[in-house]
């Protein structure tokens, strides 16, 4: 009874003092739910500032758009929907026209070609609904032969300004190009732009090559070759295509190499006397140090970005699982505990995630987990997915997918770490074992 009286009294007080109830200050609301969808943007053909730049202006704008839409985070508004056009790089933008077609970002660019064949590309990015420019205008200079790189750099800048994280378009991928049938497959090293353009072959197909890996600054490539009859690690200079084998004892098999972040140390697997363990080697002196020493098979080591830890796979527990140990060895800590077998772990360039291959219930998956093994997420599922590699910004994973059957072939796919935007990378013929380079300088 007393409670009811008090309640009534409170209600009377509230209604009796409307001014008191309406305290001064703004209305406050909290938004905790949003949407995840591609951001619509408009990218009219860049303005050609001279006649020689006309075709290039169109091509560069197209590559920029393909880069952005290829991420799955952006959606280009077709030119047929444009109300106004960009005819001059410095003319004011009619934001209302772009708002009307729901363009949330607008790219305006211009291209000029110099008499010496040099190319100059400049662009501006606008937040249409805010009616203002996002960042300052930028200009890139290069050669006509390198126009795709310029376009990738423009796209990287746009991507970075909108998302707040680094881009990955001006990067390359080294992989194993495959030809022939499954029982007569010829393999050679190839390098291409991240989007499949500008393919170059680095080796011939006389010997089987495996698992190429970029150095931290992208100037060298580690790979495994059966040239000598045994798997052996080679290091190749990308510019000169010169190569040399890392020192190993006769009869030993070395494979699965990967650079440390310092670029001078290599971590790899060595099979000697029938036992496979992980070693590290100073690439200059050739001095090797054994990091693991168990009768189990331990391979696929990968450094953390700070170089302090190594993740690798081992069957020391009876099944193939992931472990982390210090950069100088020591007692490893198991991080994978789910059902199935885990392999080919790769540390994200951001350091927060580890990508891996998982085999479970007859299917292969590419997945990611935290460095402590928590929050495991499987991103793909197919007959055979394996060998993940990270984009330079740690947002995308590329991997090998092989189809089933005698006529099956390997190809490269990429997927966002959210599991969205799974797509095939265009390559000439079969392709496997991709390794993503850092951003080019």
């Amino acid at each position, binding site marked *: 009874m007393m*409670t009811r009286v*008090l*309640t009534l*009294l*409170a*209600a009377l*007080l*509230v*209604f009796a*003092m*409307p*001014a*008191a*109830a*309406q*305290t*001064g*200050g*703004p*209305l*406050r*609301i*909290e*938004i*905790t*739910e*949003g*949407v*995840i*969808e*591609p*951001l619509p943007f408009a990218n009219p053909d860049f303005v050609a500032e001279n006649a020689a730049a006309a075709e290039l202006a169109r091509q560069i704008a197209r590559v920029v758009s393909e880069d952005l839409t290829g991420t*799955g*985070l952006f959606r280009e508004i077709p030119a047929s929907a444009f109300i106004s056009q960009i005819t001059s790089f410095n003319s004011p933008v009619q934001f209302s026209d772009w708002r009307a077609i*729901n363009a*949330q970002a607008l790219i305006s660019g211009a291209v000029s070609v110099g008499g010496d064949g040099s190319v100059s590309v400049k662009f501006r990015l606008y*937040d249409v*609904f*805010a*009616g203002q420019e*996002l960042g300052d205008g930028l200009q890139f200079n290069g050669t006509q032969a390198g126009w795709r790189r310029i376009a990738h750099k423009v796209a990287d800048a746009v991507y970075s300004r*909108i*998302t*707040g*994280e680094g881009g990955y378009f001006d990067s390359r991928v080294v992989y194993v190009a495959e030809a022939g049938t499954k029982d007569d497959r010829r393999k050679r090293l190839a390098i291409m732009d991240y989007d499949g353009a500008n393919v170059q072959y680095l080796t011939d197909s006389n010997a089987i090559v495996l698992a190429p890996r970029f150095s931290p600054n992208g100037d060298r490539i580690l790979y495994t070759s059966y040239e000598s009859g045994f798997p052996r690690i080679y290091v190749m200079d990308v510019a000169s295509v010169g190569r040399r084998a890392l020192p190993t004892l006769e009869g030993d098999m070395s494979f699965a190499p990967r650079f440390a972040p310092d670029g001078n140390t290599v971590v790899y697997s060595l099979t000697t006397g029938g036992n496979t363990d992980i070693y590290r080697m100073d690439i200059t002196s050739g001095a090797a140090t054994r990091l693991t020493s168990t009768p189990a098979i331990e391979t696929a080591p990968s450094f953390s970005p700070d170089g302090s830890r190594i993740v690798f796979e081992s069957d020391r527990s009876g099944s193939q699982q992931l472990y982390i140990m210090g950069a100088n060895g020591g007692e490893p800590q198991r991080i994978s505990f789910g059902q199935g077998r885990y392999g080919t772990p790769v540390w994200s360039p*951001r350091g*927060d995630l580890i990508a891996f291959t998982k085999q479970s219930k007859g*299917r292969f*998956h590419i*997945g990611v987990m935290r460095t402590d093994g928590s929050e495991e*997420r*499987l*991103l*793909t*599922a*197919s007959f055979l997915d394996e060998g993940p590699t990270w984009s330079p910004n740690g947002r995308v994973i590329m991997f090998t997918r092989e189809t089933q059957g005698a006529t099956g072939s390997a190809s490269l796919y990429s997927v966002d770490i*959210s*599991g*969205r935007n*799974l797509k095939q990378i265009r390559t000439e013929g079969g392709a496997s074992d991709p390794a993503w380079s850092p951003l080019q300088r």
Partner: protein
Amino acid sequence: MRIGYYISGAGHIGLILLVLFGGMFNTPPQSFEVTEVSVISGAEFDAMMQGVQTPDVTTDVAMPAPDLPAEQAPPVESQPDPTPPPPAPQVTEAPETDPVPQQPDPLPQQTEAEVSDEAPVIAPPPQEEVVLSPTISDRPVPRPSERVAPEPVAPPEPDTQVSDAVTEEVVPDEAAEVVREETEGGAPEEATTRIVTEAMEEPSAAPTTSVRPRTRPARPEPVAETPPADPAPEAAPEQQAQEQPEAQPDQTADAVNDALRQALEGGAASPAAGGQSGPPMTSGERDALRVAVQQCWNVGSLSSEALRTTVVVAVSMTEDGKPQSESLRMLGFEGGTEAAARQAFESARRAIIRCGANGFSLPRDKYDQWREIEMTFNPENMRIR
């Protein structure tokens, strides 16, 4: 004299033993098959043998007997039709260059048709309907969609324009009393409530998660409408707590005390004159504004760090419910770097401007309540999608 007894006793004992164990050493009689034999006469045997040869004879019987008188022949059996009818051209699709002979000679004709150049159209045999019992449940697999939103949206009709709200298509109608402007119908873009990866698309025999209905927004009590005295954003949980449908009896006293305290504090904090007027915003009105903004808050292009950053954005509103773009500003942020906060703010700014372009649905009579709005954009829930 006792010899007789002895002989008699021995004889009896022997007889008893013979009865008890007499059969032990005898081999059991072997089983044998019994075949019944019947005796038949020679005439019966001849008749029976004629019956065995009946098939041959029957063939002859089927043929018309030339020496049989016509009046004795059965009318039906007298129609000799030993050969099948000639195949129809439509069935065999025999070429025209291979005409069907007039004389009925079915067997050669059939052979001709089978070796014709054109393959005959053979009617497919009736398929057996096999019904397999499903081994897995028919639980619908989550449909991947480009758009992830708080509420799932079915894919719109192919010809429907994508818009933020559902609009009815208006077509010319001469019989209508009121002429309405012709417009195309619109519907929101297809959306799902979570990111569907390829690994999730495997059909499962049992649901792994259940869709729980959202709790119905509580009808606000007048007390709960009192704005909190503390202007800090942290007041939101307290506000939510006030919007509970019914307080438990043991919590009533606390709720009353809180209400009294807030009412009194609010009175003390309110301006003496010229303060906000009009009735307070209801919970439904607040929710309508919140839903309107969240429909345009696209976090898909935000970096991981920006998705860990909560920003507070202030905006001044015009009386027709439109945000004043130049008034948009970030009051503060929490959880990320300044660069990440800037990305998060830009995303929030786009949401407010884009969805407020036509004016938010806000009560005009309460303009003083929403003249200034502070929106806290917390992407925590969006990180786990």
